[in-house]
């Protein structure tokens, strides 16, 4: 194999890896409110740390243990990520089918308070490439951060989770939405029930 061919192969592999990671991030976004927060933050942490094999080993089994069903679209996300990383097809096939997205009612309350954790998160979000907005809400007493935009959103998610953990939040809830449209009813409720802590100047420029 030539050097050029090897480089192309490496780029292809890297590209494929990122695609899988992006699919997994999207799937973990859609599972917000459906998997326990104690598990979800950990799966996102592993994804941010590059532990694809860990996600592939744990996520399908947790879906089965907890009888969490997936829509066809979500199942494609699972196969494109965990399936590509070595999850057993038998387990992937066993995940319950879901005819339509589950939309359990969740209540969020806006939280405009910029405490130390929020300030630290704000500094990180502002410095991360591609970010557009940062919102903060409370689901019960649980802080929920919602970020719009951001390159490599799984990495930003992991960083923000660690920040919140260091400030005492044992089950951090960080939703980094790479697209402007919230993917689920959970996120729509979170955004509508949140307080905006920051908006990128690019948004104002684009609006004008």
């Amino acid at each position: 194999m030539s050097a050029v061919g090897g480089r192309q192969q490496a780029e292809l592999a890297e590209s494929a890896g990122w695609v899988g990671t992006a699919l997994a991030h999207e799937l973990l976004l859609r599972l917000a409110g459906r998997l326990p927060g104690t598990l979800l933050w950990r799966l996102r942490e592993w994804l941010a740390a590059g532990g694809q094999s860990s996600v592939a080993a744990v996520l399908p089994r947790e879906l089965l243990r907890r009888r969490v069903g997936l829509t066809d679209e979500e199942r494609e996300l699972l196969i494109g990520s965990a399936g590509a990383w070595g999850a057993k097809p038998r387990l992937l096939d066993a995940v319950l089918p879901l005819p339509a997205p589950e939309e359990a009612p969740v209540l969020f309350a806006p939280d405009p308070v910029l405490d130390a954790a929020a300030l630290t998160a704000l500094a990180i979000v502002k410095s991360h490439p591609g970010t557009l907005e940062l919102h903060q809400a409370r689901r019960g007493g649980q802080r929920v951060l919602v970020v719009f935009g951001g390159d490599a959103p799984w990495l930003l998610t992991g960083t923000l989770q660690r920040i919140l953990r260091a400030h005492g939040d044992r089950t951090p809830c960080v939703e980094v939405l790479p697209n402007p449209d919230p993917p689920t009813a959970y996120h729509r409720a979170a955004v509508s029930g949140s307080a905006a802590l920051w908006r990128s100047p690019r948004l104002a420029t684009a609006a004008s």
Partner: protein
Amino acid sequence: MDDPIHELLLRLAGRLDDDLLADARELVAVGEDGHALELVTAALAADATPLPPPVRAELVNAAAAARIDLDADAALAPAAPDTTAHRFSATADADVPVVAAVRELPNRLREGVRLRLTWRQTPAGPAPTPLPQPVLLVETAADGRPGEVLAYQVGAAMARSGVHVAVEVLTSGRPLTSYHAAALRDSTPLSGDAPLRAASPPERVESVVAEVVQQVTESHRNAPPEDAHDERPVDLFAVDEPAPRPVPMRGWQSGRRRRGFGEQAAEAEVDDDLPEADEHEPLPSPVPLARRTRPRPVGEVVEQSDALLDPIPNEGTWTDEWASGDWALAEDAPPPGPGGLTAAGGSAPGPHGATAAPSPAAATRPCSSGAASCFEDGDYQHTAASACALRVLPGSGTISGKSHRSQSRSGHS
């Protein structure tokens, strides 16, 4: 005999975040060993946490036996020597709520165990919670409740009180990891608990403990005759002065002062049936280990308090005591009689630096034939069984009497 997965989780303490360890112990307690191993292995693999070869091999074997989906051998980072040294302190500003929560523990959980509290100053895992992290050390007898069950129950009870504390259940007679040895050294006894129902005699201690006992015994065949009869049960919570750095095992350390956890409470209720041979002088300093590390003016009288028996301490007490410099009392206390807990040379350790240089007298005193000093003597290589081992206590009236009583009680239980 504890669950082998529980033993493995003990060896992983300090390498994973405490929440995951608690979750894993809960799963083991309810029989979900495979699930526990799946989460633990996945977390270690994702974080690329290097493990000492024996621990890694043990985890790989356990994961394979549990048939988890993750190929542990391929996913885990390559084995590497242990380079992480956790630091602990015996006290912290948040002592009061933790002690209060311990006092609220159901009696059923406090029966037959001994408790110590320490505060870890170093992070564990890639996403740690705020520091210092409280760690509750629970010693249980070898025939006591399963460690994983006790860890789960105590942790859940503490969480119900609003206190998230890492619970490490250590079994008498079992080897200690360097993590737990360091935690024990800088810990405060919470001795408002019952004495252990039973302790493992040294001849029954397995693996590393027995091996180290034999090694030390052979290296000190010329032990003084007065120590020849000191074959005491292994006391897991008999800790010595703080020693932040492990040092190579040396015979001189075996004669140092040792003190079992909860001795003060045991002294207060010494039974008449204790053998005469155990009538040693009381401890020269009733100050808990942690407090002995604090500055204290020479000659000032110290009142020993039990955090679980006394009213909830005022946080200012520690500050005052620290400022008073009263920690030095032990150095001026009268030397104990033969076989007392204080080492030859009679000086209790000072603050942390005191461990660097042993007293000459102690250095010349070998340990007895039945007394092995390995707990803090520094052979901290993480072997398959553990990083270090326990000691067999040298002569101590308090501990001995307690042990006799414990054994007699265990005979009826």
